[in-house]
């Protein structure tokens, strides 16, 4: 018995329930549909949902909580010496048992662990059969209730529509649940991290070396979690990116909205959109293999020491990536400026560029600032380009020719490869994630505020 088998059974049950419900309504009406309040298929839908909802609910509870409950039971049943060991090193013991459960060919020697794993397997067998029986039984009961209710004047359609509207509301709360999930998971793990490392050290510390000691007496691996070098690196790269994307994006938007003829506009806008559609991993590859060596060699020619993982290369390519964000949002802001303002300025004899600089841009400024802020928030959260092209050394420098590291690079570095959930090293990634999340949220909040406020001013 597997989870997918249970799922398939529930699906079959639901289909059967539809057929039964439909058939039953027809039988009761003795073939004369006019006697029914609702159409036969509504009776079918109603029966199917009555069967499916309780069954699926039990199945979902089982898939989410089943393993945890069984593990709790298994630990309760551990022999005394094992239980003592478990109290000391819970995660380690549990991991060893899990390993044996998942992979029976491991070279686990400890007989207690193997027997615990076997105990778990046995429990799991019971558990999955129990959940299978429970969910199917509840589905059948639901079906029986539905069939029992099937009468000619039973308002099956109304009942089904009520269920449907509950489903609609439920699915629209997923967005809330997801946001809540992000906030809670980041917050929860970060709090665990801040239990070990003080929040002051994290926010203001200038030394980042997340290697924690494996043994207490180890030298030189105490682990320092001062995130300032990461924040500084992120800021430096985002700043460089905006140096590229800001002017190019803004001027393209101005040209496309104010100067370009229709064909040029028709060609230019999609061109910028393609730039936005290229996956970031492609930009990263381009940065690491083309731009970074190019900059390094140019630097050699000019006598500048440009690192092969320089902030400049990463920032430059990231700038290319966010050009379309700047340009399309600025484009919106500029086109939203009322035509009367522009015409008034032109009528007074101003040239087009004077109109743009003195009238249109000031009028669109909040929107343009909003566009810049959104682009910065993109740059701050961007991962692949910096992972592939920026370095790993936490350098506290403002020199764009040196290698710096960013928040996202460190999150990836900390969480790929072998990991355990309890070390400060792993947990620090969540604290970085939280910092990233808060920063982008704030930037977006301010940006959207700006954009909306000024849009209202012209409407």
């Amino acid at each position, binding site marked *: 018995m597997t989870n997918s088998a249970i799922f398939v059974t529930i699906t079959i049950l639901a289909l059967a329930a539809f057929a039964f419900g439909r058939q039953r309504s027809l039988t009761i009406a003795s073939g004369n549909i006019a006697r029914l309040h609702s159409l036969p298929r509504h009776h079918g839908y109603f029966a199917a949902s009555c069967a499916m909802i309780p069954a699926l609910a039990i199945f979902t509870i089982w*898939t*989410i909580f089943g*393993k*945890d409950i069984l593990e709790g039971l298994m630990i309760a049943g551990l022999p005394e010496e094992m239980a003592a060991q478990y109290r000391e090193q819970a995660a380690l013991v549990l991991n060893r048992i899990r390993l044996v459960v998942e992979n029976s060919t491991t070279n686990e020697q400890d007989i207690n662990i193997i027997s615990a794993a076997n105990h778990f397997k046995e429990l799991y067998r019971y558990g999955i059969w129990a959940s299978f029986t429970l969910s199917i039984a509840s589905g059948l009961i639901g079906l029986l209730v539905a069939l029992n209710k099937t009468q000619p004047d039973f308002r099956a*359609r*109304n009942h089904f*529509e009520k269920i449907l509207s509950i489903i*609609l*509301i439920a*699915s*629209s709360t*997923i*967005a809330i649940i*997801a*946001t809540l*999930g*992000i906030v809670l*998971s*980041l917050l*929860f793990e970060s709090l665990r991290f801040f239990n070990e490392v003080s929040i002051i050290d994290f926010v203001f510390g200038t030394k980042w070396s997340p290697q924690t000691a494996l043994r207490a007496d180890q030298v030189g691996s105490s682990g320092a979690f001062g995130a300032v070098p990461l924040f500084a690196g992120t800021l430096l790269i985002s700043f460089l990116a905006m140096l590229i994307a800001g*002017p*190019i994006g803004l001027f*393209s938007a*101005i*040209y*496309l909205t104010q*100067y370009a003829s229709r064909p040029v506009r028709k060609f230019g806008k999609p*061109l*910028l959109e393609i*730039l936005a*559609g290229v*996956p970031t*991993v*492609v*930009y*990263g*590859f*381009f940065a690491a293999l083309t731009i970074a060596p190019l900059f390094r060699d140019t630097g050699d020619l000019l006598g500048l020491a440009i690192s092969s993982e320089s902030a400049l290369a990463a920032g430059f390519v990231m700038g*290319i990536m966010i*050009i379309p964000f700047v*340009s399309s949002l600025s484009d919106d802001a500029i086109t939203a400026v009322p035509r009367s303002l522009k015409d008034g300025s032109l009528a007074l004899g101003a*040239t*087009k*560029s*004077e109109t*743009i600089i003195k009238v249109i841009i000031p009028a669109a400024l909040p929107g343009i600032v909003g566009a810049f802020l*959104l682009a910065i928030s*993109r740059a701050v959260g961007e*991962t*692949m380009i910096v*992972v592939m092209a920026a370095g790993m050394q936490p350098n506290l420098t403002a020199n764009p020719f040196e290698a710096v590291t960013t928040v996202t690079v460190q999150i*990836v570095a900390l*969480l*790929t490869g072998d990991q355990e*959930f309890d070390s400060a090293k792993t947990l620090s990634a969540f604290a970085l*994630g939280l910092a*990233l*999340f808060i920063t*982008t949220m704030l930037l*977006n909040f301010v940006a959207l505020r700006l954009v909306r406020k000024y849009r209202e001013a012209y409407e």
Partner: protein
Amino acid sequence: MSDTITESPTDWKSAAMRKRVKSRYRKERIFKSFGLVALLIAGFFLVSLIGKIVIDGSGGFFQTSIEIDVPFQADILGDPQEMALGDFEKKVRSTNMMRLIQAAMALHFPEVKNRRDRRQLMRMMSTGAREQLRTMILDDPAIVGTVKRVSLLASDDIDQVIKGNIDINLPETSRKVKDKEVAWLNKFQSEGRVSVNFHTLFFTNGDSREPELAGIWGATMGSLLTLVVTLFTAFPIGVLTALYLEEFAPRNRFTDFIEVNINNLAAVPSIVFGLLGLALFLGVMGLPRSAPLVGGLTLALMTLPTIIIAARASIKAVPPSIRDAARGMGASQMQVVFHHVLPLAMPGILTGTIIGMAQALGETAPLLMIGMVAFIVDIPSGVTDAATALPVQIFLWSDSPERAFVEKTSAAIMVLLSFLITMNAIAIWLRQKFERQW
């Protein structure tokens, strides 16, 4: 009027004014050219990005083979006439095919006696050549005892020399392919035994440490499975949410809160979704690591805002007269929405969904968080198998030290981009075909 003023300030013909106007027009031209230059720079970036990938990547679809005369010796392989077929196959499967290649090389270069040179000679052929020989023998056991000219895959370094990516004019110490190998290669070439062929293995193989054997099929399947999961979660939830917000929801705090959350989700950096997937799907729910199921769910949360926003716009575009007509015929609100509004809004919703899927297909960072970066040779067959995805494969290959992986990476990027272009083209086609002016 005084005589001292010879020019009034608005005299358009005065020299000062002319100068001023001239400079204003010059500024105008400069400003305009700035705009054009900005656009051209953006275009130049795009062209150089794509151009570089295409130039690097087109070689990745081709691979060098060398034809060598392989003596299929019965004393190495066993004689199929004397043995039962099953025994023979068993023997062939356990035989080291390197020995056949060794024998073939000895035929071609009898002068090479030195052990080290011989080993170097063997390294000209790909390790995949052994598998090629094995399937050849298993397909046709009658081949044993004959000497046959067989086209076998060359190693990645030889392939790079043939394609000109390794410069043989460099001093010997600073390149991977040594003079001896170049000489042997030249001999093969002068005999017309070296050919560069279209490399179908690139499309049918899984990942490999050897560039000439590495393929994208495993990653493509991984991406496909991930996208299926994403589609089946994000599409229904997104459409139902959009329907609720547009057609049913009263305007109150709760619906405002939902909208705020959707906008927030759209702005969250993708890597944070990866952290969510790690903490929630792997940590709390205990789903398997590296599985397309988890990747798909994570990407579904990421694409949800895109789908919801597109679906809402498309539902809003359905004119109220349709709803009024349906209501006038006695339809319930549910019937109005599901029988009339939804089908009419569907093309727009699908367009938005395809664009969302294209985004999900190109996304890498969240997949790194949930462990889809492992080196996986097997082709995944289900959503809970360990798998990797196309962009992650690109990331992994780009990290490889071998020169030959550069063109493989670029080729994989070309495949990824062509998928994205196709998806976007379908979206545009759908929009144009079904777009309706009411």
